[in-house]
């Protein structure tokens, strides 16, 4: 199992959630809508390129849709290896977070 960075996890969750409609612009909007985090289109595409190199996602070029210069979108889908890695990462985070959320909340309250 390979290590997944935070942005990689966010992107893989977004790809999973968006299903057949997972292209860069949609992924960006999904991440911003769910986490409030703004990620540039370039960062999303280069990260997806790296994930594709590791065979965690697979990309396909869609048919050109109306727009400037008729540029196509590139759609991504999670591979079984990607699903395994994402699940393992999520499990790790959840097990690490187990029992400490209340403590975190208490510590955060002290700081107020």
């Amino acid at each position, binding site marked *: 199992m390979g290590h997944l960075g935070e942005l990689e996890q966010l992107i893989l969750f977004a790809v999973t959630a968006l299903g057949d409609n997972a292209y860069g612009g949609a992924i960006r909007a999904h991440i911003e809508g769910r986490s409030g985090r703004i990620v540039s*289109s370039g960062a999303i595409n280069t990260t997806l390129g790296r994930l594709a190199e590791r065979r965690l996602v697979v990309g396909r070029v869609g048919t050109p849709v109306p727009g400037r210069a008729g*540029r196509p979108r590139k759609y991504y889908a999670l591979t079984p290896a990607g699903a395994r890695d994402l699940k393992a990462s999520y499990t790790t985070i959840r097990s690490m977070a187990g029992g400490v959320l209340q403590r975190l909340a208490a510590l955060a309250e002290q700081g107020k």
Partner: protein
Amino acid sequence: MTPRRSRIGRLLAALFIRGAEAPFILRDLEDSFNHDVSRGLAPAEVRRRDLRNSLASAGSVWAESLRLSAWRPSLVDVRLGLRTIVRTPWLSFVAVCALAIGIPVGLAPMHAVDALERPLPGDPDGRIRTLCYWRDTVHEHATAGDYALWRTSLRSFGALAAYRPTTVNLDMGGAGLSVPGIETTASTFGILRTPAMLGRVLRDDDERSGAPGVVVIGHDLWRAQFGGDPDIVGRPLLISGVPFSVVGVMPPAFRFPTSHQLWLPLRMPDDGGGPRSGATLVVFGKLSDGVTPDSAQAELQTLTSSLAAGDLSRRSSDGEKADPDSFHRLRAAVLPAWHLSFYFPSPGGLRALPEFSLVQVLMLAPLFVACVNVGLLILAQTSTRASEFALRTALGAGRGRILTQVFVEFMVLAVMAAGAGLLILDWFSGRLLTALGITLPYWIDTGLNAATVVRGLVLAAGCAVIAGVVPAIRMTGRSIDANIKRARASRSGNRLGGLSSALIVIDVAVAVVAIGVAGGLWGKVLATKPSVTSDGIRSEEILSVTLDVPSSQRQHVARAQAALVERLRGEPDVRAVTFATALPRMDHPVRLMDVDRDAAAVAAPAAGPFKVRTARIAIDFFDELAQPLVAGRGFDSRDLKEDADTIIVNTTFAQRAFGSTNPIGRRVRQTTSDRAPDGPWLEIVGVVGHMGVHALTPSQDDGVYLPLAEGDVNPVRLAIWVRGDPAVLAPRVHELARAVDPTARIAMPIPLDEMFEGDWYLLRAFVVGAALLVGVLLSLAASALYAILSLVVSQRTREIGIRVALGANQWAIARDVARRAVVQIGAGVLLGLPFAGALCYEFLELTGSGSVPGAVAMASVLGVSVMLLVSVTACTVPTLRALRIAPMDALRKEG
């Protein structure tokens, strides 16, 4: 109102977002913008977010292209590199040859320094150090008095040793044999921890006055002269007529300090004269445990400073005038052991000299030229691979991936070249020195070492970047669309653009510089070759010997020196004899001289202080060598008095310091670049012509002469002007010296012209090597220029066809094609000529010689002519071919 995308954002995105993923990222930028619009955000907010997204995306893409992991080379790349070599054998051959010549030349300076600056065998930590002095930039040996003081005062050294080189005359059954040897203290063998192979090494009691004469001989001498006799120990040996007994034979690897084969005990009749007195010695020692070189240096400098302070106060109270051999501006130094054999003008060695950096840059220049030329050839070749790159890009290969492949492809070539270059360096360095008759110290290894191999690989990587990756960056710096269009266009009027122009200009400029400098060097050889007319010294008739009287008693030394001079003058074949600290054409020590600005009628053309070469000479020096003074008078007995402060200058210094005014009566004094006190004012009483104060520029440097009495300096150089062959007189000089004083030693008997010849042959060998290198580089530059220009012109075949079809004049077309090449060549020449001139005049000190500027000009004209000829041919041949094709054929063929 529907907001519009930020123009700046779109422009930046289009400019900086490149590569296979670029269309999708640009599409996503549009999608994100449309998404923000559909969310109902304010137009200004939408534009701000779009601009920020575009900028951040451009940054992400660039950061990704620089990511190291994107540059993963693979075995496939290596295989592709090998396949490219097979497919383009001539290009590969030329590239490997060019780099295989350039790489060893570029490596040579550092390799030489590594070879020189090595610790002695058996001392890997470099704890054996030499102790010496520096006065300004001149190295000065210690004396017997210094050695005696250091041995009792310094706590930083566990053991100290001293020696002095000598040429030993062995009597081998009637035949004389000169053998390089040293007189040394027994502690030398203890410090070097080398036992004898047979018998024993020297012992402390061998140094006692009156002890039996013993000698230790080297392995080579034992084998060559004694047939490897196992019973050699105890055998008698006549040295200069005196019986000695062989007590030991050293192992083959021991030739301390350089390539010596005979070791005699050092017997000093007295060493009680105090520091800076007595015979000159080379002193070295081993640091005590826990002592660092810096702390040893500090201890020695503290001792020297206290001695200098005492010396100054004593001289002030006694009213003595400054003695050049005192502690004035003297610095003590504890240096690595390789300083035993090499006297660089800096305690830091070669690396610390600014000239070394210059040499390093100059030696790397040929490699740079080779890289640029190979780069031009690669550019010509990669332009034919534009379609391959476009296809690979379209199939998803990123720019970094293609650059990695090109880098690895060229790295394969460069590593082959580096391997060949390292073998050349290994083979050439040892043989060159042997061919030049240079004997290196026994502990130097000129073979390859790990540092040189690593540097070779680094240079290879640099070559791969300059010659391979830069052209590839040029070829891949476009989007897929542009690459595909370009690939299609390359069959017609495609241009190589500004990079090729820049490379051609640099190429021509560097070629002009190289040719100019080579011409300058050749001119220097022509100007330097000595002759009787250049300085009036009949060096082929003068025998130079060093007379060393091992005593700290000035009167004793003076008597011996005067007696030997008188005895020599009585010899029938001797025309004249005189003595000095340095003879004509030898390297005279450099000092800084200041001119008295307060004197009236100052009209000096230069401000000073001046770097001048100095010698102390006997008062009859000019008379004996038949050198008439140009103005004023020569030295006489008045100039030897305590209160006489007089000096004679040569015409070069007089001209530079005083111009056309009369220098007689003007004053100069020795000065320094630091805050040390200046010397006393000295009145100029005479001007003499050029007599040679430097080995390689015998008639060009500034020189001044100070009076020298017998006994002032020990050892001194004797100049013996003889009738006939001076070498024949050498044995007689030994005899006379022994007759005058049994302890006196004669060293380095050599005719003056032979002393110079060695330097001159070295210079000539260097110039021949440089000329060969420049020839190869010029050929390479010419072939690269031809390749790139003919490619550029042949790619204009379609354009030429259209112009001919439209009725354009053929000569006008040919002129138009040639114009660009001529402009590039002209720019290169204009760029290169000033550098060539500056290098020649500034660094080769080529002043005052008529033939040198001529040689530079001739070489530059030759280089420019070759380049122009190549350019015209490269433009003309494809142009004529294009003009001969019928316009319709050309259009059909290229369309």
